[in-house]
């Protein structure tokens, strides 16, 4: 079960974004590490499903870290302190340092945002956007896209099975793969467009083009205090960043 929500999702998302901004502004590995260990780690542990979130972070950041380490660790022509010369590739201290610093930044970036996103109550976020009077088209596009993703994946799976039953065998060559991709994508897109044309009509019939603000069935979990807090957070981070960047050489 997800943890009980304390803050409105908009507030949480903003806090995560501002934290990322701070990490970029401060740009010290000590600070990044501190955010990771003192901010993200407790949040993940308290989220109620630490294993899933940890796994997602590892899956997103892991391959990136590894490939970045290989790239900069082995190929960093600017590096001067050579640890090992492997002919084409050279392991340099500068390269490894660069890879480590970039890796840390990427990890903080993904970990902070993914933790916020994974604990995000999307319906609540959409409801908040509606209550705050955001553009209804934006709310629709975002909400409908997120709702469609699992549907699209499931439908693609079904179509793949149907095509296999008709004799589709995916070969190894790129042309065979592309042909297989098309035999799945075409019915997928046609089916989605058929739905979309019906949905267009439905939206018109349900008054989606009505002027004036939309209302939401879900209650508003936002409060004036949280709104003030959000403004204060933005202002504080803004002032701090300006001071830091001007003060730093």
């Amino acid at each position: 079960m997800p943890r009980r929500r304390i803050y409105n999702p908009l507030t949480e998302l903003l806090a995560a974004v501002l934290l990322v901004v701070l990490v970029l502004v401060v740009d010290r590995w000590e600070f990044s590490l501190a955010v990771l260990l003192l901010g993200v780690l407790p949040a993940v542990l308290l989220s109620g499903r630490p294993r899933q979130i940890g796994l997602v972070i590892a899956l997103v950041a892991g391959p990136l870290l590894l490939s970045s380490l290989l790239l900069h660790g082995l190929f960093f022509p600017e590096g001067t302190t050579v640890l090992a010369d492997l002919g084409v590739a050279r392991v340099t201290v500068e390269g490894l340092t660069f890879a480590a610093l970039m890796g840390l930044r990427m990890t903080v970036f993904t970990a902070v945002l993914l933790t916020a996103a994974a604990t995000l109550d999307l319906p609540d976020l959409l409801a908040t956007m509606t209550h705050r009077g955001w553009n209804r088209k934006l709310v629709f596009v975002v909400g409908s896209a997120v709702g469609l993703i699992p549907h699209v994946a499931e439908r693609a799976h079904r179509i793949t099975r149907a095509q296999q039953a008709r004799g589709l065998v995916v070969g190894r060559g790129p042309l065979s793969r592309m042909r297989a991709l098309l035999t799945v994508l075409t019915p997928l897109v046609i089916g989605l467009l058929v739905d979309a044309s019906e949905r267009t009509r439905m939206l018109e019939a349900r008054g989606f083009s009505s002027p004036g603000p939309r209302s939401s069935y879900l209650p508003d979990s936002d409060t004036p205090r949280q709104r003030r807090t959000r403004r204060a957070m933005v202002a504080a981070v803004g002032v701090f960043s300006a001071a830091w960047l001007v003060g730093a050489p």
Partner: protein
Amino acid sequence: MIALDSTRFTYDDGAPLLAGVALTVAAGDHVVVAGASGSGKTTLARLLAGMTGADAGSSFTGAITLGAETVRFRGTPGDPRIDPARWSARVAYVAQGAWGQLSMMSSTVAEEIAFGPANRGMPAQELRRAVDDVAAALHLTPLLGRDPRRLSGGQLQRTVIAAAVIQQPEVLVLDEPFQGLDDAAARDVAAALEALRRNGTGVVVCAPLLPSHAPQGARVLALADGRRVFEGPLTEARRAGLRRFGIGTQGEPLRLGDDVVPAPVGPAGPELVAVHDLRFRYPRERGAAGPPAGLTGVDLSVVAGEVVALRGPNGSGKSTLLQHLNGLSRADSGSVTSGGVRIGRQPTGALAATVGYLFQDTDSQLFERTVLREVSYGPRAAGMRKDDAARRALLALDALGLGEFAGAHPYELGFVQRRMVALASLMATGPVVWALDEPTAGLDEPARTLLAGVLARHARGGGCVLMATHDAVFADAVAHRSVWLDGGRISPEGATPR
């Protein structure tokens, strides 16, 4: 309360439809618009729903009266344009296929139902009251918190109806609302419609068959080739001989020629399908309430010349068993042999020439830009030369009466014809074992009769057919025997040897 008077409706340069067709629906009416595929009933439903547009090359001449107001159309670009939002508040329309009518942005059924009024800015409290009222009327209250994208067919259909009628329209128009539903789900939907009708909503249902049950006083408007062929009470319609217009009655036995009645099968025929102690469990999915039953020790033998119906409630394992015949699902234990091939690790695609599988959802497989190319795909994939494949395809199309559509785009055809195209592409590949999942769902009377003939011919020619079906009438008429499944095993007491 709503009166449609259609002088003419034409698509592109096609023949005029709905010439001289008129329909009036008053409060508390129940009208069935019956007609075979291509009869114009969808067009009629859309006209009632206010979709008269001259776009896509179509033009409408006639008038629609809603309440005290009459809107006239001359089939010219200067015609009035109906405001869909205001019109739908008085005439609700539920199109065929529920998926396209979900906004996809609602996480609960309640939000989906509230979508329309929320767009118009109805305050939250009123919104809740309106949703609760309509949910109570349609028996949806226990489902209000569910994800609309994870409902069964009947629940989904009722959700879409609720979302359409929350504005309390005077008339509700539905296009084939029972398509693809099993009996229990269809009863639920029918009960929901009856609840609305008793509250004074005029209900118009478009369907390929005359219903077996309908509220007292139900009227029928029967269409054939875009013309009215009957109008009057349902009781009279059943006696009016509408069969000649391709309009049958639900639950009434098929009328088949002698050559279509199942031919006797010799016991010594070669065994084409052999299933021994088949066990299969679905992997547990995260978040799912519980996987379907799977199969627990199924034995089945089907010989050449046999047509076997697999029957039983939803989730009893009918489709799962069929899917083992061509390797779409692989047994956990036990053995499956079909068409003389032992199903092992070979790719499903390699079995297509031996076992043909017709999916319940036709539209997940059509992908070519002409019907001919579509039907040629199977034989081509089986390794046939291009012209050979095309010849086989044309033969299959002719057998199903689709020859004239060879050059058309599959999606320009109606539902019934698309279903037949899918069957043709199975036939053209030439498999000896046919595995058909709900082959009659959504078919009209002529197509059902045609299908029965095709199945009988295939069996006589030395093939065999297994079909999972809810359609008792069709199974009784066409199959040599029925095999009943329940909870993933064959239930002996239900078996009905002939």
